[in-house]
């Protein structure tokens, strides 16, 4: 398939793998965090770790917007869905995220009308065709999906659709990265920056990471060769003693971002004073809410929400796992109270979370599954 297969060529991958191996300083261990869940997915899907030397560990970061949704917000959404006449529309990967009394799938089984959509505009379509119902879009995601939500609200306002609203759970990536960097026991050498988010915000906002925290960041694309290239670029910075923001994903990410997309977000949404992240706790200015001007489309103002905070269990150590301080098996509840069937923390919620992956495949991680083909 054109424009895909070029970025999955094993011969080129072997060449980059050799470059990476040559860039590793003897005896040094490297921990690199891929911030974005999309990267984690690519790494698993294509088996990218088979190309990396044992000296490099990829740490899966906080960039999966559904995994970081705290239980209380899931409970609030299910409460909205249970109100008379409501249709709750959401993205597919939200369906299985657990609240304190089950997931959207469970709520649907109890009778709530919860529908999967592929775009917020699909939710708008449902609102147009069901004028007697109240249609609420469960808006989630980082800066990647926020522009589409914002444009949908603007469209609804133009059309005067009175039965449409959004339950805004958009989060912003920079405060989460900063929260990880602020940790005194951080063990990371550099970051693979989130490619999709950067198509919107550009590369400039990451400047504080090398400047204030002394860690390099390379904005990376989502094909397997993109990820390998970005790893090589990070290692080259470390080898040459440089520490800066670089852009591997130039074919999609302009350095200065997408002004129109940012303008749409700012027109409709504003920063919340703070927002809770599953596993990381409350982080200031880390999420968006609907501006007062668009209150008519804000489910948080339309519905009376319980807003009960459901604390992550004290024993949950997702934060430490995310920062690379603890290995999954070192967490107190790993494999006992917290399993993929009954996940407690963000790292166990998604099948690609560090803990879920370790639970399922940990016994194979220390040896290669097969003779590695890139040898």
């Amino acid at each position, binding site marked *: *398939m054109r424009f*895909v297969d070029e970025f*999955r060529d*094993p011969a080129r*991958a*072997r060449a980059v793998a050799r470059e990476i191996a040559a860039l590793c300083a003897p005896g040094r261990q490297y921990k690199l965090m891929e911030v*974005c*869940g*999309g990267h984690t*997915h690519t790494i*698993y*899907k*294509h*088996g*990218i*770790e*088979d*190309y990396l030397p044992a000296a490099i560990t990829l740490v899966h970061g906080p960039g*999966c*917007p*559904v995994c970081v949704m705290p239980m209380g917000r899931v409970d609030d959404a299910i409460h909205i869905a249970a109100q008379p006449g409501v249709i709750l529309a959401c*993205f*597919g*990967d939200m*369906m*299985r995220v657990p609240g304190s009394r089950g997931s959207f*799938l*469970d709520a649907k*089984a*109890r009778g709530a009308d919860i529908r*999967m*959509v*592929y775009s917020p505009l699909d939710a708008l379509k449902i609102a147009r065709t069901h004028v007697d119902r109240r249609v609420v879009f469960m808006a*989630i*995601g*980082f800066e*990647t*999906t926020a522009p589409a939500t914002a444009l949908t609200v603007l469209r609804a306002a133009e059309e005067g659709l009175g039965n449409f609203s959004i339950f805004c759970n958009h989060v912003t990536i920079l405060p989460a990265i900063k929260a990880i960097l602020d940790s005194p026991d951080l063990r990371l050498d550099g970051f693979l920056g989130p490619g999709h988010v950067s198509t919107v915000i550009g590369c400039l906002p990451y400047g504080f990471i090398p400047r204030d925290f002394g860690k390099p960041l390379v904005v990376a694309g989502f094909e*397997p060769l993109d990820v390998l290239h970005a790893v090589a670029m990070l290692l080259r910075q470390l080898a040459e003693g440089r520490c800066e923001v670089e852009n591997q994903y130039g074919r999609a990410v302009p350095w200065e971002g997408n002004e129109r997309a940012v303008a749409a977000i700012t027109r409709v949404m504003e920063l919340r004073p703070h927002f809770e992240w599953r596993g990381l706790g409350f982080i200031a200015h880390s999420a968006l809410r609907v501006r007062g001007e668009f209150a008519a489309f804000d489910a948080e103002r339309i519905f009376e929400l319980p807003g009960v905070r459901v604390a992550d269990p004290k024993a949950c150590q997702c934060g430490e796992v995310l920062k690379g301080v603890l*290995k999954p*098996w*070192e967490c107190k509840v*790993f*494999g*006992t109270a917290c*399993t*993929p*069937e009954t996940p407690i923390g963000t790292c166990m919620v998604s*099948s690609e979370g560090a803990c879920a992956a370790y*639970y*399922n*495949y*940990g*016994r194979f991680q220390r040896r*290669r*599954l*097969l003779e*590695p*083909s*890139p040898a």
Partner: protein
Amino acid sequence: MSGEQQVLERIERARRRQPRLRDEHITMAHGAGGKATRTLVEALFLDAFRNPLLAPLEDQAVFSVGGQRLALTTDAFVVSPLFFPGGCLGDLAVNGTVNDLAVGGARPLYLSAAFVLEEGFAVADLRRIADAMAAAARAAGVSIVTGDTKVVQRDKGDGCYVTTAGVGLVEHDVTLGAATVRPGDAVLVSGPIGDHGITILLARGDLDLAAELASDTAALWPLVAGLLDAVPGVRCLRDATRGGVATILNEVAAAAQVGVVVDEAAVPVRTEVRGACELLGLDPLYVACEGRLVTVVDAAAADAALAALAAHPLGRDAARIGTVEAGPAGLVLLRTRFGGTRIVDLLVGDPLPRIC
């Protein structure tokens, strides 16, 4: 023993325990063919009905009556939309049951058909479904010899549900079953995978995507008969329906306690299906087929088996997609086109499109 090993051993012990059904309500995941379905079937149905014929949880039961080996199977069919490119509910209802017999090595003979109809359902649509069933039965060489009809109130059904059961005769002297698979065996598939699942997804019209694709619904008995006639070393036959090829290979790996290694580049997938999967974040290995045979054969018989499949129009694009290895026991591994390795696990429920 290190702390890490202790944790891993504890997990292994937990895995080996009988699955427990914790859910208080049935969710859509219980119908998706993955882990949730398996838990429901093993913890509830198998627990209630336990007997030696049911216990292997094959697609059909094979037993002897009067010196003949008979196969019996049943399947319920629900699909939305009822009509889609390449077929309709009626085709699925006949072919699905015929195929469950065929993969037991049985020549399909007779079917039953039970209809649950919703008040208000168009008779013209029901006639189209019945006509499709008649045509599919003729093509498969079976007769629909008994049936039943029930009507439920408006909004209590989805237009039309069909349940069919089938009886077949095992004439070849073979013992088929996932548990007979051995290290070294070859894994074959009879054609491109995922056509049916993606066709249905697009036919629902929610995606604003279009592609020249049709369901692969077909009766597999002629293909199976040709294979069993030509090759003695067939270990196991399955038709890849919901849960796709990945789910079947996991069942094989678990039943035989072997590893199955699949070569991604060798798996036939139409460009349209691959494209749709890329866009939607789905994996073709988990997408449903309705007329694709997955078979495991003795390595020495692999070429002959491939030739026998390719000799039939339904198996024209048959391919050898993988090999059975001694370990890791119970796991399916994929050598990716990119050159890496990953584990192809059973899904919990339906494959959900991902946005992040």
